[in-house]
């Protein structure tokens, strides 16, 4: 029956099964059987329409390190949040765009009013990890904390205490900063450097440029004619609110946009003219082959290279290193006998050589061009290399220091900008710091760690970590590599004397705590925060509703503990509340430095604006001064130039793993070795739309929209007789998981994707049912940055 016949049937004689119409009859099932009648249960949920007594408060979206920072319009009635809208400021220009919240912000009520919110302090009664606790009072909780922290300080010293990395909450007064302040006042704690997000780019970028601020302001993308989104997926992980939207506008402005990624990401679909699938961990091979094309076809910018770069070829080598291998030697193969041709790269990357040649020519000749590097590819075995290889392509094509170009690397905003922690945590009297990813090493054998483990500030550690106070962090279990290993470390009472976890929920990490402290959400206290990586704005986040049950803000928790230690006045500067601190930040810091035109706190708060923005009419371009006058405005590198050959890396003395020029190095787990017979699939764990890392994993709205699954290419599924929606078992030498699959053509063959951040949920056999990729990942760190290489994993898979 044709659709139009069905239509006439419906109009003429009502509906029956024959007249059932659905889009192209593709939805074979129906959500509703015929004649379904459900009685009304009388429990209509209250409507959220605006009505009398409702207040609308503008505020910054709760900060969970999501990659953006947006404005919310929060409707509150009778002390309850009833609806969440977003930025509706007039104009919405490129210079001052609306800061529209994504699904995570819009769905926040499902997190805010989740029945599993922690309500009371909890003390462990079972074994660590068993999640058996008893409710205790705050008085008892403070007594225990005071006792345990004091005991560890007197037994071992302050350096046995660790306040780990964590980005679950950070609006200056919230998150780990107050805990860091308190510990610093109590004699310090073992600190860390680097992050789980971008350890390699954080360390590698300055080896090229002497700075992390290698990015132009994003409005400058409108000047670009060609944009390579390399492993970069702003439509999903944001990387600055509006980065995805700005790419759209740049494309409308004439830029051709190409996405290179193992997944056909939302960015590839919605932002790019072309998508190229590349095997994970092989990006440097393609970049090197692009350099080969550029060099052999004479497309390099020789004037720029001679003026601004060090180590490109024998004529630009730094003094004293003339006989070392220059970048051009490596690319042409004159040093190792392997020319890095597109044909060479094709076998490694699975990108056709013709495509590599074309992209190389397009990038080198469509000036100015952006090569934007995502961060996933630097959370890999030799993540330092990809950062330097990408930036080298920008350098040899002269795309640095010019409008519409892009230097690559970490690309923090030129002239400074976001991620500004103004909360005064104070100076840490314990000088030693560990690379952030090596905290499990410091628990097990801290006293054996030295410079070879990247220890900074001291030659070695005095202590193993004996007490952990984890605030707004899920790295203890969920987000660290190799969960089966981590939980054994946490369970061992001989290693850690005491574990404190402070959070909104009983996370997989909190289940391993001895003491759990219930923190309130950011809607329930005052805070302030600037943008994420880019932009010129400050968000005020006032207290909108009361903290429920016995929850307290992170700052209040620390102030209460400070009282036990007799330093309440010192810690609170004479009794400052969260709001007092925010007022002080606005009036004494922000207004006196970066934002002189910002209204004073009293006026800002009374205006209910929620955000102060400084329009970006003339976007700053990184390295403008240097490029104009490299002699007199040198970079902060040993040579003063862009170091394609890094003397610092050369002096590291590990040429195989830390070469002085960027090289493709085969990863330790890869699809090419014999080991791939056993574990033939590469696995990745991308940043997933419904979550921010592990935050929002229990959000019913976002997780119903995007359930946790493993994404598999149809070819890999067919070879294993796996059907869409099947439960599959995925395993390697470190762990096993079982979860549902989605077969999708968006995945590259040979690669499976298990979105990172799902909550670890083992069954009695130790098989994770939560879909946490870290059951498969490794604790092994990268050779120079000592960063996490969690995306370098090989797995096997079968139908469960």
């Amino acid at each position: 029956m044709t659709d139009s016949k069905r239509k006439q049937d419906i109009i003429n004689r009502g509906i029956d099964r024959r007249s059932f119409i659905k889009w192209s009859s593709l939805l074979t099932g129906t959500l509703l059987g015929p004649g379904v009648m459900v009685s009304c249960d009388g429990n209509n949920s209250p409507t959220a329409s605006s009505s009398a007594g409702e207040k609308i408060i503008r505020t910054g979206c709760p900060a969970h390190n999501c990659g953006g920072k947006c404005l919310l319009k929060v409707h509150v009635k009778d002390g309850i949040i009833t609806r969440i809208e977003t930025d509706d400021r007039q104009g919405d220009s490129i210079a001052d765009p609306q800061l529209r919240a994504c699904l995570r912000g819009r769905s926040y009520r499902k997190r805010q009013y989740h029945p599993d919110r922690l309500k009371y302090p909890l003390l462990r009664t079972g074994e660590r990890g068993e999640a058996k606790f008893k409710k205790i009072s705050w008085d008892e909780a403070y007594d225990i904390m005071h006792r345990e922290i004091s005991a560890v300080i007197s037994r071992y010293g302050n350096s046995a205490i660790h306040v780990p990395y964590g980005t679950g909450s950070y609006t200056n007064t919230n998150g780990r900063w107050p805990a860091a302040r308190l510990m610093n006042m109590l004699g310090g704690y073992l600190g860390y450097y680097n992050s789980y997000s971008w350890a390699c780019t954080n360390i590698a970028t300055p080896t090229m440029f002497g700075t992390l601020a290698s990015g132009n302001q994003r409005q400058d993308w409108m000047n670009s004619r060609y944009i390579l989104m390399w492993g970069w997926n702003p439509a999903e992980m944001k990387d600055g609110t509006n980065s995805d939207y700005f790419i759209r506008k740049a494309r409308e402005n004439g830029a051709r946009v190409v996405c290179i990624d193992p997944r056909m990401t939302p960015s590839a679909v919605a932002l790019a003219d072309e998508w190229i699938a590349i095997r994970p961990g092989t990006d440097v091979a393609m970049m090197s082959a692009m350099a080969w094309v550029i060099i052999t076809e004479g497309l390099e910018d020789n004037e720029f290279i001679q003026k601004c770069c060090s180590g490109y070829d024998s004529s630009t080598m730094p003094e004293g290193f003339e006989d070392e291998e220059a970048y051009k030697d490596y690319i042409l193969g004159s040093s190792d006998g392997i020319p890095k041709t597109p044909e060479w790269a094709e076998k490694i990357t699975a990108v056709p050589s013709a495509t590599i040649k074309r992209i190389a020519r397009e990038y080198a000749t469509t000036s100015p061009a952006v090569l934007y590097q995502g961060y996933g590819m630097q959370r890999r075995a030799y993540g330092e290399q990809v950062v330097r290889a990408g930036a080298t392509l920008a350098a040899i094509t002269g795309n640095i220091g010019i409008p519409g170009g892009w230097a690559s690397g970490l690309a923090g905003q030129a002239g400074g900008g976001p991620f500004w922690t103004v909360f005064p945590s104070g100076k840490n009297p314990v000088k030693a710091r560990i690379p952030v990813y090596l905290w499990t090493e410091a628990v097990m054998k801290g006293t054996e760690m030295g410079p070879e483990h990247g220890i900074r500030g001291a030659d070695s550690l005095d202590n193993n970590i004996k007490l952990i106070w984890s605030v707004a962090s899920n790295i203890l279990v969920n987000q660290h590599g190799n969960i089966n290993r981590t939980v054994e470390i946490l369970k061992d009472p001989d290693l850690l004397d005491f574990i404190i976890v402070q959070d909104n929920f009983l996370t997989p990490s909190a289940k391993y705590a001895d003491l759990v402290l219930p923190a309130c959400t950011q809607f329930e206290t005052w805070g302030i925060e600037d943008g994420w990586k880019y932009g010129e704005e400050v968000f005020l986040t006032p207290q909108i509703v009361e903290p429920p049950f016995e929850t307290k803000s992170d700052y209040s928790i620390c102030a209460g503990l400070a009282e036990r230690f007799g330093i309440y006045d010192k810690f609170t500067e004479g009794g400052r509340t969260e709001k007092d601190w925010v007022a002080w930040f606005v009036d004494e810091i922000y207004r006196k430095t970066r934002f002189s035109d910002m209204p004073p706190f009293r006026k800002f708060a009374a205006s209910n604006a929620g955000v102060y923005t400084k329009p970006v009419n003339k976007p700053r371009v990184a390295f403008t001064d240097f490029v104009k006058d490299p002699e007199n405005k040198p970079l902060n590198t040993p040579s003063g130039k862009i170091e394609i050959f890094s003397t610092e890396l050369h002096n590291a003395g590990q040429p195989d793993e830390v070469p002085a020029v960027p090289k493709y190095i085969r990863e330790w787990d890869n699809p090419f070795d014999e080991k791939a017979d056993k574990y033939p699939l590469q696995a990745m764990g991308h940043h997933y739309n419904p979550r921010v890392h592990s935050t929002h994993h229990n959000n019913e709205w976002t997780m119903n929209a995007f359930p946790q699954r493993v994404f598999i290419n149809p070819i890999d599924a067919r070879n294993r007789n796996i059907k869409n929606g099947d439960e599959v078992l995925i395993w390697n030498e470190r762990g096993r998981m079982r979860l549902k699959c989605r077969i999708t053509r968006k995945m590259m063959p040979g690669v499976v994707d298990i979105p990172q951040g799902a909550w670890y949920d083992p069954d009695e056999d130790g098989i994770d049912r939560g879909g946490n990729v870290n059951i498969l990942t490794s604790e092994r760190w990268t050779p120079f940055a000592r960063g996490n290489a969690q995306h370098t994993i090989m797995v096997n898979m079968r139908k469960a």
Partner: protein
Amino acid sequence: MRRYGFYIDTAHCSGCKTCQIACQDKNDLYPELIWRKVLDIEGGEWEEDEETYKNYPFAYHLSISCNHCSEPLCVHACPTQAMHVTDIGSVGIDESKCIGCGYCTWACPYDAPRLNKKTGRMSKCDMCYDKVINNENPICVDSCPMRALDFGYLDDLEARYGDKKSIFPLVAEDLTGPSMVINPHRDSEKAGEGNSEIANREEL
């Protein structure tokens, strides 16, 4: 009466479902009750060529809810006349008349009416009637981080964006006269050539 309509820019939709969630939040919908939904369309094949691939598949996203059609089949199909055309030309449900029989869902080619299991009544996008009569856009429209949705008088939208109203997998527009305009994704024509599918049925 001038009709209102939605503009749906499938070329720039990233499939993030912020529109879907904004709608659920405004209307207090439980997680499985989805009024504005986002289809993931996939098509094409991976064609292996020794160690590389000579062809890649394609994909695009389509955000869709009730299209408040000029010939709403749901209204024709409703035995109690609960489903009706409102004074602003949108299609609404009079809950006091609805018996939850679901015939409207059968009739709708866009799968818009959904049973609200909590009330036993049918439910669907009401075009944010309360907002539209106050000259505001429906909640989904201004939620879009990509600015890929728009709303207004249909003739204005057609003048601005063209009059395309059907791409794969939607039915031909003359069936119900949907009040919408679509900017087609560059690959939507390929999808019409076969071997394409709605890939995220379990999410809808």
